[in-house]
């Protein structure tokens, strides 16, 4: 799917109080571990908050997808404050509005609806990742 070295960074919400943060992380894990492990890399929001040089360099050098669990949009804001650009930002609530049948509940452990919502979100992210990688390859060959 991707050429070596071309990666998309994935930065999910780090919120701990609501299901939506958990959905964001489950979706991020599905993309980075299952659907596109070679073309994506998970970046912990907490590392960006801490100013970790490696995390800052990663979002500064690669297209970055953020997944926010609420309107505070901490993931998107921290990527921008870390010198990166958000190639595509997702909000779990927007995805839920498109998939009302998948009502997320639970925090430490998502219910079935939450898992299905995370999967639907992961599919949307995967499509965006493929598009970003294609753009990177096209610009490389141009």
């Amino acid at each position: 799917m991707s050429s070596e070295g071309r990666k998309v960074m994935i930065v999910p919400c780090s919120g701990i109080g609501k299901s939506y943060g958990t959905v964001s992380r489950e979706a991020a894990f599905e993309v980075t571990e299952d659907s596109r492990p070679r073309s994506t890399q998970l970046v912990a929001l907490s590392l960006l908050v801490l100013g970790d040089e490696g995390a800052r360099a990663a979002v500064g050098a690669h297209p970055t997808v953020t997944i926010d669990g609420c309107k505070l949009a901490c993931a998107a804001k921290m990527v921008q404050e870390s010198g990166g650009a958000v190639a595509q930002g997702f909000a779990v609530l927007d995805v839920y509005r498109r998939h009302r049948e998948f009502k997320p509940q639970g925090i430490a452990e998502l219910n079935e609806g939450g898992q299905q919502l995370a999967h639907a979100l992961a599919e949307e992210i995967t499509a965006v990742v493929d598009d970003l990688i294609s753009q990177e390859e096209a610009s490389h060959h141009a």
Partner: protein
Amino acid sequence: MPGFLETTVDKFIFKVATDRHYSAEGVWALAEGDRIRVGMTDFLQQLNGDVAFAEVKPEGTAVATGDEVAVIETIKANVEVPSPVGGTVVEVNPAMELSPEAINQDPYGQGWLVVIEASDWPTDRDALLDPQAYFELMKGQAEEEAKKL
């Protein structure tokens, strides 16, 4: 633009519009002649978080005071909104269908829920709180909530 009473509790700022009446449950009622525009207060929307969906009773629905006039699904809860006034729903905010986040963005303006043609507004109004009374009640509720954080 209405004036506002405003208080800060913990890191949150809560506003109460001064041009309308309130139920203790955090629902406002703004008289426009015999028609009463109804919505959620700033405190109620902040307490319950981002709105995902709003299901509002359709036009023509008869409601008694206290009847459910809307159910608001947020990231935290399903909020049943009791009508502060009895009468008939004559208008539903079309924004509730496609952009219910208007409740969060502008609870006293674009985020209104319904307009009700009141059957006895003077009686209902007398049972509601004026802005200052609701402001004091809300401050207490907000402080109680802050203790849970």
